[in-house]
Protein backbone atom coordinates (compact mmCIF):
# COMPACT_ATOMS: atom_id res chain seq x y z
CA UNK A 1 0.00 0.00 0.00
CA UNK A 2 1.68 3.18 -1.24
CA UNK A 3 0.07 6.30 0.16
CA UNK A 4 0.98 9.89 -0.67
CA UNK A 5 -0.12 12.61 1.72
CA UNK A 6 -0.18 16.26 0.71
CA UNK A 7 1.28 18.50 3.36
CA UNK A 8 0.94 22.24 3.13
CA UNK A 9 3.48 24.33 5.02
CA UNK A 10 1.94 27.54 6.29
CA UNK A 11 2.77 30.52 8.49
CA UNK A 12 2.09 29.79 12.17
CA UNK A 13 -1.68 30.46 12.56
CA UNK A 14 -1.03 31.65 16.13
CA UNK A 15 0.72 34.69 14.65
CA UNK A 16 -1.87 37.18 13.35
CA UNK A 17 -1.93 37.22 9.55
CA UNK A 18 -1.35 40.21 7.32
CA UNK A 19 -1.41 41.06 3.64
CA UNK A 20 1.74 41.99 1.76
CA UNK A 21 0.90 45.51 0.51
CA UNK A 22 2.99 45.12 -2.66
CA UNK A 23 1.25 41.97 -3.90
CA UNK A 24 -1.91 41.98 -1.74
CA UNK A 25 -1.38 38.32 -0.96
CA UNK A 26 -0.94 36.63 2.39
CA UNK A 27 2.48 37.39 3.81
CA UNK A 28 4.51 34.20 3.95
CA UNK A 29 7.72 35.50 5.44
CA UNK A 30 9.40 33.65 8.27
CA UNK A 31 9.44 30.00 9.11
CA UNK A 32 6.55 27.86 7.96
CA UNK A 33 5.06 24.95 9.86
CA UNK A 34 2.98 21.94 8.88
CA UNK A 35 -0.68 22.82 8.50
CA UNK A 36 -2.28 21.02 11.43
CA UNK A 37 -5.15 20.02 9.11
CA UNK A 38 -2.72 17.74 7.27
CA UNK A 39 -1.71 15.87 10.43
CA UNK A 40 -5.02 13.97 10.21
CA UNK A 41 -4.15 12.75 6.70
CA UNK A 42 -0.71 11.62 7.82
CA UNK A 43 -2.12 9.73 10.78
CA UNK A 44 -4.81 8.14 8.57
CA UNK A 45 -2.16 7.09 6.05
CA UNK A 46 0.10 5.59 8.72
CA UNK A 47 -2.82 3.60 10.14
CA UNK A 48 -3.91 2.34 6.69
CA UNK A 49 -0.37 1.23 5.81
CA UNK A 50 -0.10 -0.49 9.18
CA UNK A 51 -3.43 -2.26 8.61
CA UNK A 52 -2.35 -3.34 5.12
CA UNK A 53 0.80 -4.84 6.59
CA UNK A 54 3.08 -3.40 3.93
CA UNK A 55 3.84 -0.16 2.11
CA UNK A 56 4.95 3.32 3.04
CA UNK A 57 3.79 6.90 3.35
CA UNK A 58 5.31 9.63 1.18
CA UNK A 59 4.58 13.29 1.81
CA UNK A 60 4.52 15.92 -0.94
CA UNK A 61 4.56 19.67 -0.48
CA UNK A 62 4.92 22.82 -2.52
CA UNK A 63 6.41 25.71 -0.57
CA UNK A 64 8.70 28.72 -1.08
CA UNK A 65 12.37 29.04 -0.08
CA UNK A 66 13.11 25.33 0.19
CA UNK A 67 11.01 25.15 3.37
CA UNK A 68 11.18 21.69 4.95
CA UNK A 69 10.31 22.17 8.63
CA UNK A 70 6.71 21.00 8.13
CA UNK A 71 7.94 18.01 6.15
CA UNK A 72 10.30 17.11 9.00
CA UNK A 73 7.27 17.04 11.32
CA UNK A 74 5.52 14.64 8.93
CA UNK A 75 8.64 12.45 8.72
CA UNK A 76 8.91 12.48 12.51
CA UNK A 77 5.33 11.21 12.74
CA UNK A 78 6.37 8.24 10.63
CA UNK A 79 6.26 9.12 6.91
CA UNK A 80 9.08 7.34 5.05
CA UNK A 81 10.07 9.96 2.49
CA UNK A 82 9.24 13.47 1.30
CA UNK A 83 9.17 15.47 -1.92
CA UNK A 84 9.33 19.26 -1.87
CA UNK A 85 8.54 21.40 -4.89
CA UNK A 86 10.17 24.78 -4.35
CA UNK A 87 10.76 27.33 -7.05
CA UNK A 88 10.66 31.16 -7.06
CA UNK A 89 8.69 30.89 -10.32
CA UNK A 90 5.80 29.38 -8.34
CA UNK A 91 5.17 32.50 -6.29
CA UNK A 92 1.59 33.69 -6.78
CA UNK A 93 0.31 30.37 -8.09
CA UNK A 94 -3.45 29.90 -8.02
CA UNK A 95 -5.16 26.70 -6.84
CA UNK A 96 -5.22 25.17 -10.33
CA UNK A 97 -1.48 25.69 -10.82
CA UNK A 98 -0.80 24.37 -7.31
CA UNK A 99 -2.83 21.26 -8.13
CA UNK A 100 -1.00 20.84 -11.46
CA UNK A 101 2.38 21.06 -9.73
CA UNK A 102 1.42 18.68 -6.90
CA UNK A 103 -0.11 16.18 -9.37
CA UNK A 104 3.13 16.20 -11.37
CA UNK A 105 5.14 15.64 -8.19
CA UNK A 106 2.94 12.68 -7.23
CA UNK A 107 3.42 11.17 -10.68
CA UNK A 108 7.16 11.72 -10.61
CA UNK A 109 7.42 9.80 -7.34
CA UNK A 110 5.81 6.83 -9.08
CA UNK A 111 2.14 7.46 -8.28
CA UNK A 112 0.25 6.07 -5.29
CA UNK A 113 -2.54 3.66 -4.43
CA UNK A 114 -4.12 6.40 -2.39
CA UNK A 115 -3.57 10.17 -2.21
CA UNK A 116 -4.73 11.95 0.94
CA UNK A 117 -5.23 15.70 1.47
CA UNK A 118 -7.09 17.86 3.99
CA UNK A 119 -10.48 19.29 3.06
CA UNK A 120 -9.04 22.81 3.02
CA UNK A 121 -5.85 24.51 4.05
CA UNK A 122 -5.85 26.66 7.19
CA UNK A 123 -4.31 29.72 5.55
CA UNK A 124 -5.82 29.81 2.06
CA UNK A 125 -8.89 27.56 2.44
CA UNK A 126 -9.60 27.52 -1.28
CA UNK A 127 -10.75 23.95 -0.78
CA UNK A 128 -10.42 22.86 -4.39
CA UNK A 129 -6.83 21.61 -4.65
CA UNK A 130 -7.49 17.92 -3.75
CA UNK A 131 -10.39 17.49 -6.20
CA UNK A 132 -8.41 19.32 -8.90
CA UNK A 133 -5.49 16.92 -8.37
CA UNK A 134 -7.86 13.95 -8.70
CA UNK A 135 -9.16 15.30 -12.01
CA UNK A 136 -5.63 15.92 -13.33
CA UNK A 137 -4.51 12.41 -12.36
CA UNK A 138 -7.73 10.83 -13.67
CA UNK A 139 -8.57 9.41 -10.25
CA UNK A 140 -11.90 8.88 -8.53
CA UNK A 141 -12.19 10.85 -5.32
CA UNK A 142 -14.12 11.09 -2.09
CA UNK A 143 -13.95 14.45 -0.36
CA UNK A 144 -14.82 15.16 3.29
CA UNK A 145 -14.00 11.67 4.56
CA UNK A 146 -14.73 11.35 8.27
CA UNK A 147 -13.89 7.67 8.52
CA UNK A 148 -11.81 5.56 6.15
CA UNK A 149 -11.06 1.87 5.80
CA UNK A 150 -9.79 -0.34 3.01
CA UNK A 151 -11.58 -3.67 2.61
CA UNK A 152 -10.29 -6.12 -0.02
CA UNK A 153 -8.56 -3.32 -1.92
CA UNK A 154 -11.68 -1.12 -1.97
CA UNK A 155 -12.06 2.14 -0.09
CA UNK A 156 -15.00 2.41 2.31
CA UNK A 157 -15.56 5.98 3.46
CA UNK A 158 -18.13 7.81 5.54
CA UNK A 159 -18.35 11.14 3.75
CA UNK A 160 -19.57 14.12 5.73
CA UNK A 161 -22.46 15.97 4.11
CA UNK A 162 -24.32 19.08 5.14
CA UNK A 163 -27.09 17.06 6.75
CA UNK A 164 -25.29 13.94 7.93
CA UNK A 165 -23.05 11.49 6.13
CA UNK A 166 -22.98 9.17 3.13
CA UNK A 167 -21.39 5.74 2.93
CA UNK A 168 -19.24 5.70 -0.21
CA UNK A 169 -17.13 2.96 -1.77
CA UNK A 170 -14.44 3.38 -4.39
CA UNK A 171 -11.79 1.20 -6.05
CA UNK A 172 -8.11 2.11 -5.74
CA UNK A 173 -6.16 4.05 -6.88
CA UNK A 174 -8.10 7.04 -5.57
CA UNK A 175 -7.85 10.37 -3.76
CA UNK A 176 -9.58 11.35 -0.54
CA UNK A 177 -9.72 14.53 1.49
CA UNK A 178 -10.11 14.00 5.23
CA UNK A 179 -11.72 16.15 7.91
CA UNK A 180 -10.27 16.88 11.32
CA UNK A 181 -11.81 14.21 13.48
CA UNK A 182 -11.14 11.32 11.05
CA UNK A 183 -8.43 10.08 13.44
CA UNK A 184 -6.48 11.46 16.40
CA UNK A 185 -3.00 12.43 15.13
CA UNK A 186 -0.05 11.13 17.12
CA UNK A 187 2.66 13.38 18.47
CA UNK A 188 6.11 12.73 17.01
CA UNK A 189 8.17 10.73 19.50
CA UNK A 190 11.74 11.68 20.35
CA UNK A 191 12.86 8.63 18.42
CA UNK A 192 10.72 9.73 15.48
CA UNK A 193 12.23 13.21 15.53
CA UNK A 194 15.75 11.80 15.53
CA UNK A 195 14.92 9.33 12.75
CA UNK A 196 13.37 12.11 10.65
CA UNK A 197 16.71 13.92 10.51
CA UNK A 198 18.18 11.02 8.55
CA UNK A 199 15.26 10.65 6.14
CA UNK A 200 15.57 11.96 2.64
CA UNK A 201 13.76 15.01 1.27
CA UNK A 202 13.88 15.29 -2.50
CA UNK A 203 13.62 18.86 -3.81
CA UNK A 204 12.46 19.63 -7.34
CA UNK A 205 11.65 22.74 -9.39
CA UNK A 206 8.63 23.46 -11.58
CA UNK A 207 10.77 23.08 -14.70
CA UNK A 208 12.03 19.68 -13.54
CA UNK A 209 8.39 18.63 -13.23
CA UNK A 210 7.72 19.89 -16.73
CA UNK A 211 5.06 22.35 -15.56
CA UNK A 212 4.98 25.63 -17.50
CA UNK A 213 3.07 28.92 -17.09
CA UNK A 214 3.24 28.99 -13.31
CA UNK A 215 3.14 31.67 -10.62
CA UNK A 216 1.65 35.08 -11.30
CA UNK A 217 1.73 34.49 -15.07
CA UNK A 218 -0.36 31.33 -14.71
CA UNK A 219 -2.96 32.77 -12.33
CA UNK A 220 -5.84 34.29 -14.30
CA UNK A 221 -6.84 36.48 -11.39
CA UNK A 222 -5.64 39.70 -9.86
CA UNK A 223 -6.41 41.40 -6.57
CA UNK A 224 -7.72 44.89 -7.32
CA UNK A 225 -8.99 46.37 -4.05
CA UNK A 226 -8.40 45.72 -0.34
CA UNK A 227 -10.66 47.52 2.13
CA UNK A 228 -11.46 47.33 5.81
CA UNK A 229 -14.92 45.93 6.53
CA UNK A 230 -17.29 47.96 8.70
CA UNK A 231 -16.35 47.10 12.26
CA UNK A 232 -19.04 45.98 14.68
CA UNK A 233 -19.32 48.40 17.53
CA UNK A 234 -18.45 46.64 20.77
CA UNK A 235 -21.33 46.53 23.20
CA UNK A 236 -21.77 46.32 26.92
CA UNK A 237 -19.51 43.99 28.93
CA UNK A 238 -20.72 42.91 32.37
CA UNK A 239 -18.81 40.93 35.00
CA UNK A 240 -21.10 38.27 36.45
CA UNK A 241 -21.89 39.04 40.06
CA UNK A 242 -24.34 36.17 40.27
CA UNK A 243 -27.14 38.16 38.62
CA UNK A 244 -25.84 38.58 35.06
CA UNK A 245 -28.43 36.13 33.73
CA UNK A 246 -30.99 38.87 34.42
CA UNK A 247 -29.11 41.17 32.04
CA UNK A 248 -29.55 38.53 29.35
CA UNK A 249 -33.26 38.24 30.16
CA UNK A 250 -33.66 42.05 29.88
CA UNK A 251 -31.71 42.10 26.62
CA UNK A 252 -34.01 39.44 25.16
CA UNK A 253 -37.09 41.26 26.48
CA UNK A 254 -35.99 44.46 24.75
CA UNK A 255 -35.74 42.55 21.50
CA UNK A 256 -39.25 41.18 22.15
CA UNK A 257 -38.12 37.60 21.55
CA UNK A 258 -39.38 36.50 24.97
Amino acid at each position, binding site marked *: MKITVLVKQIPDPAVPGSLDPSTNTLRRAGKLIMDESDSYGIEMALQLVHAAGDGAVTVVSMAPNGEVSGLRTALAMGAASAVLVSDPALQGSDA*LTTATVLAAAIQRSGGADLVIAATESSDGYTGTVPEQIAEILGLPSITFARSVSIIDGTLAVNRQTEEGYDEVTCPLPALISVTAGVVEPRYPSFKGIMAAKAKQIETVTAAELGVGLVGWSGADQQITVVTKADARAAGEIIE*DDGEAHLDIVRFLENLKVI
Partner: protein
Amino acid sequence: MNIWVYAQSSNGAVTSTTLELVTKARSLGSVQAFVGGDGHAPAAILGEYGATKVYATGDLEGRLPGVAVAGAMHAVIQSGDQPDLILFPQSTEGRDVLARLSVKLGRTVLTNNVGIDIDGGSVSVTTAVFGGDVLVTTAFTGAAPFLAAFRPKSFAAEPAYGAPAEVVVAPIPDLGPTGTARVTAVHVEETSGPKLDEAAIVVSGGRGLGEAAKYEMVEQLAKLLKAAPGASRAIVDAGWVPYSYQVGQTGKVVKPLVYIACGISGATQHMVGMKGSKNIIAINKDKEAPIFGIADLGIVGDVHKVLPKLIEALGAR
Protein backbone atom coordinates in the same frame (compact mmCIF):
# COMPACT_ATOMS: atom_id res chain seq x y z
CA MET B 1 -23.97 38.12 -19.62
CA ASN B 2 -24.91 34.43 -19.75
CA ILE B 3 -24.73 33.11 -16.19
CA TRP B 4 -25.07 29.55 -14.95
CA VAL B 5 -25.79 28.61 -11.36
CA TYR B 6 -25.00 25.17 -9.98
CA ALA B 7 -28.32 24.37 -8.31
CA GLN B 8 -27.77 22.17 -5.30
CA SER B 9 -30.51 20.21 -3.60
CA SER B 10 -30.64 18.94 -0.06
CA ASN B 11 -33.26 16.40 1.06
CA GLY B 12 -35.05 16.90 -2.26
CA ALA B 13 -35.34 20.69 -2.06
CA VAL B 14 -33.23 23.34 -3.79
CA THR B 15 -30.94 24.90 -1.15
CA SER B 16 -31.40 28.46 0.03
CA THR B 17 -27.87 29.35 -1.10
CA THR B 18 -28.81 28.29 -4.63
CA LEU B 19 -31.82 30.62 -4.59
CA GLU B 20 -29.64 33.46 -3.29
CA LEU B 21 -27.28 32.94 -6.23
CA VAL B 22 -30.09 32.73 -8.79
CA THR B 23 -31.54 35.98 -7.39
CA LYS B 24 -28.18 37.73 -7.64
CA ALA B 25 -27.47 36.30 -11.09
CA ARG B 26 -30.71 37.59 -12.58
CA SER B 27 -29.67 41.15 -11.66
CA LEU B 28 -26.47 40.60 -13.66
CA GLY B 29 -27.72 38.80 -16.78
CA SER B 30 -29.68 35.82 -18.05
CA VAL B 31 -29.73 32.78 -15.79
CA GLN B 32 -29.59 29.06 -16.50
CA ALA B 33 -29.42 26.55 -13.66
CA PHE B 34 -27.58 23.24 -13.66
CA VAL B 35 -29.00 20.38 -11.60
CA GLY B 36 -27.36 17.09 -10.66
CA GLY B 37 -30.35 14.75 -10.71
CA ASP B 38 -33.88 15.10 -12.04
CA GLY B 39 -34.73 18.62 -13.22
CA HIS B 40 -38.51 18.63 -13.20
CA ALA B 41 -39.10 19.17 -9.50
CA PRO B 42 -36.54 22.00 -9.08
CA ALA B 43 -37.57 23.69 -12.38
CA ALA B 44 -40.58 25.35 -10.75
CA ILE B 45 -38.73 27.10 -7.93
CA LEU B 46 -35.66 27.87 -10.05
CA GLY B 47 -37.98 29.47 -12.62
CA GLU B 48 -39.77 31.39 -9.89
CA TYR B 49 -36.45 32.91 -8.83
CA GLY B 50 -35.45 33.85 -12.38
CA ALA B 51 -33.83 30.92 -14.20
CA THR B 52 -35.10 30.44 -17.75
CA LYS B 53 -33.56 27.06 -18.41
CA VAL B 54 -32.58 24.12 -16.22
CA TYR B 55 -29.99 21.66 -17.42
CA ALA B 56 -30.38 18.40 -15.51
CA THR B 57 -28.20 15.31 -15.53
CA GLY B 58 -30.95 12.86 -14.56
CA ASP B 59 -30.41 10.31 -11.78
CA LEU B 60 -26.80 10.27 -10.59
CA GLU B 61 -27.10 6.51 -9.93
CA GLY B 62 -24.95 6.76 -6.83
CA ARG B 63 -22.19 8.85 -8.38
CA LEU B 64 -20.86 11.76 -6.37
CA PRO B 65 -22.08 15.09 -7.77
CA GLY B 66 -18.60 16.59 -8.19
CA VAL B 67 -17.40 14.39 -10.97
CA ALA B 68 -20.81 13.71 -12.54
CA VAL B 69 -22.11 17.28 -12.74
CA ALA B 70 -18.73 18.68 -13.85
CA GLY B 71 -18.67 16.08 -16.64
CA ALA B 72 -22.18 16.99 -17.78
CA MET B 73 -21.46 20.74 -17.59
CA HIS B 74 -18.32 20.30 -19.63
CA ALA B 75 -20.19 18.33 -22.28
CA VAL B 76 -22.82 21.09 -22.65
CA ILE B 77 -20.12 23.76 -22.91
CA GLN B 78 -18.28 21.77 -25.56
CA SER B 79 -21.49 21.35 -27.52
CA GLY B 80 -21.68 25.13 -27.88
CA ASP B 81 -23.70 26.69 -25.01
CA GLN B 82 -21.02 28.99 -23.60
CA PRO B 83 -21.63 30.58 -20.19
CA ASP B 84 -19.63 33.71 -19.30
CA LEU B 85 -19.79 32.99 -15.60
CA ILE B 86 -20.71 30.01 -13.42
CA LEU B 87 -21.73 30.55 -9.79
CA PHE B 88 -21.44 27.78 -7.20
CA PRO B 89 -22.67 27.57 -3.62
CA GLN B 90 -19.70 27.29 -1.24
CA SER B 91 -20.59 23.82 -0.03
CA THR B 92 -19.03 20.37 -0.12
CA GLU B 93 -20.79 19.60 -3.40
CA GLY B 94 -20.38 23.03 -4.95
CA ARG B 95 -16.66 22.93 -4.30
CA ASP B 96 -16.27 19.48 -5.85
CA VAL B 97 -18.11 20.38 -9.05
CA LEU B 98 -16.18 23.65 -9.31
CA ALA B 99 -12.81 21.93 -8.83
CA ARG B 100 -13.40 19.17 -11.39
CA LEU B 101 -14.75 21.66 -13.95
CA SER B 102 -11.83 24.06 -13.47
CA VAL B 103 -9.42 21.36 -14.63
CA LYS B 104 -11.60 20.33 -17.59
CA LEU B 105 -11.82 23.95 -18.74
CA GLY B 106 -8.34 25.05 -17.62
CA ARG B 107 -9.82 27.98 -15.67
CA THR B 108 -8.83 29.52 -12.35
CA VAL B 109 -11.30 29.42 -9.45
CA LEU B 110 -12.19 31.97 -6.80
CA THR B 111 -13.88 30.60 -3.68
CA ASN B 112 -15.32 31.84 -0.37
CA ASN B 113 -16.79 34.94 -2.00
CA VAL B 114 -19.37 37.21 -0.41
CA GLY B 115 -19.91 39.64 -3.30
CA ILE B 116 -19.69 40.04 -7.07
CA ASP B 117 -19.43 42.99 -9.45
CA ILE B 118 -19.63 43.12 -13.21
CA ASP B 119 -18.26 46.14 -15.04
CA GLY B 120 -18.62 45.70 -18.78
CA GLY B 121 -17.05 42.33 -19.53
CA SER B 122 -14.90 42.33 -16.42
CA VAL B 123 -15.98 40.29 -13.42
CA SER B 124 -14.63 40.71 -9.91
CA VAL B 125 -15.55 39.00 -6.67
CA THR B 126 -15.04 39.88 -3.00
CA THR B 127 -13.92 37.69 -0.12
CA ALA B 128 -13.78 38.50 3.58
CA VAL B 129 -10.50 37.57 5.28
CA PHE B 130 -9.13 37.78 8.82
CA GLY B 131 -12.48 36.90 10.38
CA GLY B 132 -14.31 39.34 8.16
CA ASP B 133 -12.22 42.40 9.07
CA VAL B 134 -10.75 42.87 5.60
CA LEU B 135 -12.48 42.67 2.22
CA VAL B 136 -10.40 41.62 -0.78
CA THR B 137 -11.68 42.16 -4.31
CA THR B 138 -10.20 40.02 -7.06
CA ALA B 139 -10.78 40.36 -10.81
CA PHE B 140 -10.79 37.47 -13.27
CA THR B 141 -8.15 38.29 -15.89
CA GLY B 142 -8.23 35.17 -18.07
CA ALA B 143 -10.81 33.89 -20.54
CA ALA B 144 -14.47 33.11 -19.74
CA PRO B 145 -16.19 31.17 -18.33
CA PHE B 146 -15.26 32.53 -14.91
CA LEU B 147 -15.77 30.12 -12.00
CA ALA B 148 -16.63 31.39 -8.52
CA ALA B 149 -18.10 29.99 -5.30
CA PHE B 150 -20.09 32.05 -2.79
CA ARG B 151 -20.67 31.66 0.91
CA PRO B 152 -24.25 31.14 2.10
CA LYS B 153 -26.26 34.30 2.91
CA SER B 154 -24.05 36.54 0.77
CA PHE B 155 -27.16 37.72 -1.09
CA ALA B 156 -30.85 37.89 -0.25
CA ALA B 157 -33.13 35.41 -2.04
CA GLU B 158 -36.20 37.09 -3.57
CA PRO B 159 -38.66 35.45 -5.97
CA ALA B 160 -39.17 37.05 -9.39
CA TYR B 161 -42.43 35.12 -9.89
CA GLY B 162 -41.13 33.63 -13.14
CA ALA B 163 -42.68 30.64 -14.88
CA PRO B 164 -41.18 27.17 -14.39
CA ALA B 165 -37.88 26.92 -16.23
CA GLU B 166 -37.54 24.81 -19.36
CA VAL B 167 -35.84 21.48 -18.53
CA VAL B 168 -33.10 20.26 -20.86
CA VAL B 169 -31.37 16.94 -20.26
CA ALA B 170 -27.58 17.17 -19.91
CA PRO B 171 -26.44 13.54 -19.86
CA ILE B 172 -23.47 12.45 -17.79
CA PRO B 173 -20.70 11.44 -20.21
CA ASP B 174 -18.47 8.39 -19.73
CA LEU B 175 -16.32 9.37 -16.76
CA GLY B 176 -13.84 6.49 -16.96
CA PRO B 177 -12.05 5.67 -13.71
CA THR B 178 -12.92 9.11 -12.24
CA GLY B 179 -16.57 8.07 -11.99
CA THR B 180 -16.14 4.84 -10.04
CA ALA B 181 -17.00 6.00 -6.49
CA ARG B 182 -20.53 5.00 -5.42
CA VAL B 183 -22.77 6.21 -2.63
CA THR B 184 -24.22 3.09 -1.01
CA ALA B 185 -26.16 4.65 1.88
CA VAL B 186 -27.31 8.11 2.94
CA HIS B 187 -27.65 9.10 6.61
CA VAL B 188 -29.46 12.23 7.75
CA GLU B 189 -28.63 13.56 11.21
CA GLU B 190 -31.60 15.86 11.62
CA THR B 191 -32.01 18.02 14.66
CA SER B 192 -35.41 18.75 16.09
CA GLY B 193 -36.65 22.32 16.23
CA PRO B 194 -35.76 25.12 13.83
CA LYS B 195 -32.99 24.69 11.28
CA LEU B 196 -29.66 26.16 12.29
CA ASP B 197 -29.25 28.38 9.23
CA GLU B 198 -32.86 29.61 9.33
CA ALA B 199 -33.57 30.06 13.05
CA ALA B 200 -34.32 33.51 14.50
CA ILE B 201 -32.26 32.63 17.57
CA VAL B 202 -29.16 30.44 17.72
CA VAL B 203 -27.57 29.20 20.95
CA SER B 204 -24.07 27.81 20.40
CA GLY B 205 -21.73 26.01 22.75
CA GLY B 206 -17.96 25.70 22.69
CA ARG B 207 -15.11 24.05 24.50
CA GLY B 208 -15.79 26.24 27.55
CA LEU B 209 -18.70 23.91 28.40
CA GLY B 210 -16.00 21.58 29.65
CA GLU B 211 -17.51 18.22 28.71
CA ALA B 212 -19.95 16.68 26.23
CA ALA B 213 -22.71 16.17 28.80
CA LYS B 214 -22.82 19.91 29.52
CA TYR B 215 -24.01 20.59 25.98
CA GLU B 216 -27.42 19.74 27.40
CA MET B 217 -27.50 23.26 28.88
CA VAL B 218 -27.25 24.67 25.37
CA GLU B 219 -30.07 22.41 24.20
CA GLN B 220 -32.29 23.36 27.14
CA LEU B 221 -31.75 27.06 26.57
CA ALA B 222 -32.35 26.63 22.85
CA LYS B 223 -35.61 24.83 23.52
CA LEU B 224 -36.87 27.56 25.85
CA LEU B 225 -36.08 30.23 23.23
CA LYS B 226 -37.34 28.15 20.27
CA ALA B 227 -33.79 28.50 19.02
CA ALA B 228 -31.52 26.20 17.05
CA PRO B 229 -28.55 24.73 18.92
CA GLY B 230 -25.14 25.30 17.31
CA ALA B 231 -21.50 24.63 18.07
CA SER B 232 -17.91 25.65 17.55
CA ARG B 233 -15.70 23.32 15.58
CA ALA B 234 -13.72 22.41 18.70
CA ILE B 235 -16.62 20.43 20.14
CA VAL B 236 -17.61 18.99 16.75
CA ASP B 237 -14.09 17.63 16.26
CA ALA B 238 -14.21 16.31 19.83
CA GLY B 239 -17.33 14.35 18.88
CA TRP B 240 -19.68 16.08 21.37
CA VAL B 241 -22.17 17.05 18.64
CA PRO B 242 -22.57 16.22 14.93
CA TYR B 243 -20.96 18.32 12.20
CA SER B 244 -24.37 19.60 11.13
CA TYR B 245 -24.26 21.79 14.29
CA GLN B 246 -21.04 23.58 13.33
CA VAL B 247 -21.08 27.33 12.77
CA GLY B 248 -18.20 29.00 10.96
CA GLN B 249 -15.92 29.02 7.99
CA THR B 250 -16.20 25.28 7.44
CA GLY B 251 -19.68 24.96 8.91
CA LYS B 252 -22.93 26.86 8.57
CA VAL B 253 -23.30 30.59 8.11
CA VAL B 254 -25.97 31.99 10.41
CA LYS B 255 -27.46 35.48 10.56
CA PRO B 256 -30.13 35.22 13.26
CA LEU B 257 -31.75 38.05 15.19
CA VAL B 258 -29.92 36.79 18.29
CA TYR B 259 -26.79 34.63 18.57
CA ILE B 260 -25.80 33.41 22.02
CA ALA B 261 -22.21 32.09 22.27
CA CYS B 262 -21.57 30.01 25.40
CA GLY B 263 -17.94 29.20 26.18
CA ILE B 264 -16.74 30.10 22.69
CA SER B 265 -13.51 32.07 22.31
CA GLY B 266 -14.33 33.74 19.01
CA ALA B 267 -11.69 32.39 16.62
CA THR B 268 -11.75 34.13 13.23
CA GLN B 269 -13.03 30.93 11.60
CA HIS B 270 -15.98 30.88 13.99
CA MET B 271 -16.73 34.58 13.63
CA VAL B 272 -17.04 34.50 9.83
CA GLY B 273 -19.99 32.17 10.35
CA MET B 274 -21.93 34.31 12.84
CA LYS B 275 -20.69 37.88 12.60
CA GLY B 276 -23.70 38.85 10.51
CA SER B 277 -26.05 38.15 13.44
CA LYS B 278 -28.18 41.18 14.40
CA ASN B 279 -27.46 40.81 18.12
CA ILE B 280 -24.69 38.83 19.75
CA ILE B 281 -24.62 37.72 23.38
CA ALA B 282 -21.46 36.06 24.66
CA ILE B 283 -20.76 34.28 27.91
CA ASN B 284 -17.09 33.60 28.55
CA LYS B 285 -15.02 33.55 31.71
CA ASP B 286 -12.03 35.19 30.00
CA LYS B 287 -12.64 38.91 29.62
CA GLU B 288 -9.95 39.04 26.93
CA ALA B 289 -11.79 36.51 24.71
CA PRO B 290 -12.06 37.89 21.14
CA ILE B 291 -15.79 37.13 21.06
CA PHE B 292 -16.33 40.15 23.35
CA GLY B 293 -14.98 42.38 20.57
CA ILE B 294 -18.16 41.77 18.56
CA ALA B 295 -20.69 41.08 21.34
CA ASP B 296 -23.56 43.49 21.97
CA LEU B 297 -23.93 42.00 25.43
CA GLY B 298 -20.90 40.29 26.94
CA ILE B 299 -21.09 38.42 30.21
CA VAL B 300 -17.73 37.74 31.82
CA GLY B 301 -18.69 34.66 33.79
CA ASP B 302 -18.79 30.91 34.13
CA VAL B 303 -21.25 29.13 31.82
CA HIS B 304 -21.84 26.57 34.57
CA LYS B 305 -23.19 29.33 36.79
CA VAL B 306 -24.87 31.69 34.30
CA LEU B 307 -26.63 29.14 32.08
CA PRO B 308 -28.48 27.18 34.82
CA LYS B 309 -29.79 30.45 36.29
CA LEU B 310 -30.79 31.74 32.86
CA ILE B 311 -32.55 28.46 32.08
CA GLU B 312 -34.37 28.61 35.39
CA ALA B 313 -35.40 32.24 34.93
CA LEU B 314 -36.73 31.63 31.42
CA GLY B 315 -38.40 28.39 32.45
CA ALA B 316 -40.27 30.19 35.23
CA ARG B 317 -41.83 32.71 32.86
